């Protein structure tokens, strides 16, 4: 499990990213991805910089950010745990898993645990539909996740796992 290495907000870093992307046709989406990948969210200050560079109003940039589920304007927990709540996973127990995860973590969707370790998000299909219920943590997908496997997963996120093999 690799912990994403996000950096704290720094306008000059954002400006470098913006300069790299702004000339692309349809630059806004790749640009927002790049900003979020670096800072873990899209800070208000970045919106102003982006709007200026792309000659858009801040409202327009906000409109785009809020349209897409993937983009967020608040810093998340250290790990983002996404539970698939689409049909194929439902058919093998995803509803039960969702309920278990919420109570085990003590949060609802879009919330972060008190220790700031995990932000819980719903996701609609991870393309792992033959082997659900599916959970994604960062870029890793886990198959056939029941409450026991969910606990193991969450435990492994509490401590940085040492790779022995």
């Amino acid at each position, binding site marked *: 499990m690799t912990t994403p290495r996000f950096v704290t907000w720094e306008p000059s870093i954002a400006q470098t990213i913006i300069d790299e992307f702004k000339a692309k046709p349809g630059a806004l989406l790749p640009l927002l991805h790049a900003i979020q990948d670096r800072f873990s969210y899209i800070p208000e200050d970045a919106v102003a910089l982006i709007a200026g560079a792309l000659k858009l109003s801040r409202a327009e940039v906000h409109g785009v950010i809020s349209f897409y589920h*993937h983009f967020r304007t608040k810093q998340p927990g250290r790990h983002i745990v996404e539970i698939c709540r689409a049909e194929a996973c439902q058919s093998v127990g995803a509803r039960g898993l969702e309920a278990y995860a919420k109570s085990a973590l003590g949060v609802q969707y879009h919330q972060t645990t008190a220790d700031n370790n995990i932000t819980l998000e719903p996701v609609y*299909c991870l393309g792992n539909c033959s082997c659900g219920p599916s959970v994604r943590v960062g870029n*890793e997908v886990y198959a056939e996740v029941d409450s026991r496997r969910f606990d193991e997963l969450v435990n492994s996120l509490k401590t940085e796992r040492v790779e022995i093999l």
Partner: protein
Amino acid sequence: MTYCIHVPSDTTAKALGADRVARLVEFFAEEHKLDMKVSRNSTRGLYWIEPLVEVDTEEGRYGFGPVKEGDIESLFTAEFWKGNVDHPLALGLVEEIPYLKRQERFTFSRLGITDPLSLEDYKANDGFKGLENAIRLSSQQIVDAVKESGLRGRGGAAFPTGIKWQTVLNVESPKNQKYIVCNADEGDSGTFADRLVMECDPFMLIEGMVIAGLAVGATQGYIYCRSEYPLSIENLNQAIKTAYENSFLGANILGSNNHFDLEVRMGAGAYICGEETSLLESLEGKRGLVRAKPPLPAIVGLFGQPTVVNNVLSLAAIPFIMDKGAKAYADVGVGRSRGTLPFQLTGNVKFGGLVELAFGPTLNELMYDFGGGTRSGRPLRAVQVGGPLGAYLHESQWDTSLGYEEFAQKEAVLGHGGVVMFDNTVDMSEQARFSMEFCVAESCGKCTPCRIGSTRGVEVIDRIRSGENVDGNLNLLADLCETMVDGSLCAMGGMTPFPVQSAMKYFREDFVKSTVSTANTEEL
């Protein structure tokens, strides 16, 4: 001699532990002082035996699976690298496994065989032969071949691909710029075939897109891939880089005067961005609001220019057609559904995975002969085909032949070929509620029947589920569904009622029971 061991590397194999299996095999090989090479090939798509470890032998590849971490030691004790050995996980020659042998792998012929990022592997297995043929033809000849193949768009609407291409070929571009856009948004639950193309055989998609460019005179392509598929994006980017370095992309493709550039763009978690006009808006950097048609994207598409928008599977079928011939493709199938469809067997299924077949067999054959029934072992009760906007099919409909028209006759859709199976613990009023709830979460918000109707739909179903004026509310729900079907701008609002209506029609008992559990249905 070097023993070659193959361990798959696609998302699902990894999700089932393939990475750790691969590392353990390497570790044990060292312990045993064996000259052993572990290659990370693609998956066969036979997910019930993943991780499937294969070894090269003189008779072919021998398989062991599903291999869990704890099995590695005994595999080494049995000297599994020799192939035909006594071990409980031994599966024999992989190509002889009936599930695989009975398939017709036109598009997925390399699946599980090659290393996804190896250009040599791709070329050694018929890769880029279609492009070599296409480059010698005129644009019109390529379009004609695609028409003759009978290929219809695999993304859902099943519109003939050749006719779409002809439109783009014929139209003048004001800026002398046309585009090929690959719709890789694959948002449907129960589907993963696009992901398999991108993760496991990315050169095939590149080849298909270059040929599409030649066919309509487009020099720029975009692959719009959903953000839920990071490995697809990674592999595509790697393959694109290799293709540029080897003159399959860029200027003077294969020494000809043709030019084609290709770039991957990442979506941002919006189902509606799979709808082609919404996708174009998103590619332009805007909110993914659906555009009214006409004009068709073929005429006024990306950045206002003529644009081919095709699904991954449609484009991935092109190299086969240009290599083996339009007739070879058109020769199989049923009625007006020609060629093959990679069906995806998912949900509560015992033997889940990818099943590429010529159109024609029945849903029952797919679910039982391949799928082996449910994973839970309980009776199968409902099947949703064609994604979250597809109808739920009842047992009386399962002998329907897998073809676009055949399904339409049953008020169902094949869509992208995703088959989601449910056993008899399913509560169909809960599934109907979810369809509406999904529309609330994913509607682009442009039109009222979809935006407001779906919210009302959730409320009405909640009242039904709590036993409140059930008959009256069922009538209300039926009316609401009709309004959404008739009054929505796109198929999101227009088809969300399909699963709801089918659930009401065929599983009515789940709506009229007096007490139902409302657990786990709280608002998002």
